[in-house]
Each structure stands twice: as C-alpha cells, then as structure tokens.
C-alpha cells in the first residue's frame, strides 16, 4: 500500500530534493504534496489525507513549531506523524519538539539514508529500493 506525504518547507529546492530522495530510497510513497509554510500546509491538509508530514522549522507566515502545535490541537490531524527536518542543533529545541508530539527529527543537511531511516517505519519501502539499508534508528530524536 502506498502512502501520501506532505512536505512543508519554504525552500523549493529542499522540497524537490526530498521528493527525489524518497524516490531514490524506494519509499512506498504515492502522492507528494507540498507547502511552503504552515498556513499552506493546513490548506493542503484540508484537501488531502496524508500518512506523514516532513516539516521545516524556519519558515515565514507560520513556522514549523506553530504548525506542529496547531496540528496536535486538531482532533482530525493530531495522529499524523510529523518528522521535523531543520537546521536546528539545539538539544533544548529538539526536546521541545518531542514534547509537542513530533515523531522524529532529521538535521539538515541530511543524507538520503537518514531520511529513509526515519520515514521507512511510517511508509515502508518498495521491493526494488535503490539505497542499501543503513543502521536502523531506534531513537528518532
């Protein structure tokens, strides 16, 4: 079964890179929706059901922390796993994101294997995955 994914990042370059990485990694993804900030993400979520979200923190209009808070307050959306992909290196911020209910965290710049390791438990992989298995990440933060 394939899954739909929403990528929320104000950089079109990063959104394209993530899409390409998910393809290369053989992740079991069907539709990839995009949003460049939290407001656009909420609009996408009004129209589409997604299995997982990848969310940047530093975005204009509504940032990733605000979006995460809004989603966890929403009964229809609160169970969607949210993976934060950000440049943040602050341990305190990462703990804050975990407390808010984020599923996992990937620090930019990330390698394709890191992205796959965090998304694989959520969407699975196709049989002909191109990237070899990395070390399984038991701790996603």
């Amino acid at each position, binding site marked *: 079964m394939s899954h739909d994914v929403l990528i929320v990042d104000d950089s079109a370059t990063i959104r394209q890179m993530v899409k390409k990485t998910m393809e290369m990694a053989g992740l079991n993804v069907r539709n990839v929706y995009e949003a460049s900030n939290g407001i656009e993400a909420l609009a996408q979520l009004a129209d589409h059901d997604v299995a997982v979200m990848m969310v940047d923190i530093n975005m204009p209009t509504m940032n990733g922390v605000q979006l995460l808070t809004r989603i966890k307050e929403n009964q229809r959306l609160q169970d969607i796993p949210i993976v934060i992909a950000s*440049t943040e290196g602050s341990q305190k*911020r990462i703990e804050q994101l975990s407390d808010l209910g984020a599923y996992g965290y990937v620090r*930019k710049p990330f390698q394709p294997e890191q992205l796959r390791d965090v998304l694989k438990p959520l969407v699975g992989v196709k049989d002909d995955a191109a990237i070899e298995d990395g070390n399984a990440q038991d701790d996603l933060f």
Partner: protein
Amino acid sequence: MMQPSKTATLKTIFSDVLANMAFMFNDDDDLALSEPEVTWLETAIGYRGPWSGELTLWCTRGFAVLLSANLLGVDPRDDDAQSKSEDAVKEFMNIICGQLVTAIHGSEQVFDLTIPVIQELAGPPAFTEVDDPNLATLCIEGNPVQLCYTPGDAAGGD
C-alpha cells in the same frame, strides 16, 4: 577583550556543508575577484536568542546556479537550476547559520533564525584580503565566495 577568530570555523562549516550537501569543494586557486561582467549576490541571515548575530554571504550567480544544479542533481543549464539558484543559496545559508550557531554557542540554548534575504548587487562586492577574524574567503570550483560573521548583542540587545 579580543574575540577569538571565527575564520577557521566559518571555512570549516562552509566547506563541510557544501561537500556533504552538494558535492562541491573548496580549492586553492587564486581568486578572480574583480571580473566586471559577473553578477554578484548578497545573502544575509541572522539569529536571535541568548545571543544574536548576522551572517552574510557574497557569491556569484555562477556559484548559485552550480549549487542549485548539484543539489537538484541536474545540469547547470537546466531551467530548474537557473530558476531555483537564489532559493538554493538562501537554504544553504539557513543550514550554514544553524551549524554556526551550534559551533559558536553550543547546543544548550534555543535560537531562532531569521528568514534569509538575497539581493543582486549592482557591482562586485568590496572583497577584502585583510586579516578580519570574522571573515572567510574561499574559492569553490573556480567561484570566489566570501562569508562574514557579525556578532550581535546578548539577549535583549537587538
């Protein structure tokens, strides 16, 4: 008291992120800083928290397109590489700034980064070779770039 030089930190972070993210490398060729026909870009980002600071990058349009092409895995002549070149530099600066904040201030405090701002310059930037402790000048695959860190005030000072 004189602040320790950030030049080595800037160079290391810039080179490492560029190599890991875009497979682009710093080389030791002489810098050609004054080619008048080259278009230059200035990109700035800041951070706020217990301390603040600004980071500014000057680079050529050629560097921006090459960066974009490498990130996207396309030819530099590809339309996507051209159209996303400024976006690529802004995101690159976002990542550099995130790494720099951790390198300078550690990972115990929370900082907020500003949204990067990019602009095309009317002419070449006033590159300087002086021994500025907050400046790093590099040559990336033939493209000169300069990165400048400006420390700000402690909390509440901005």
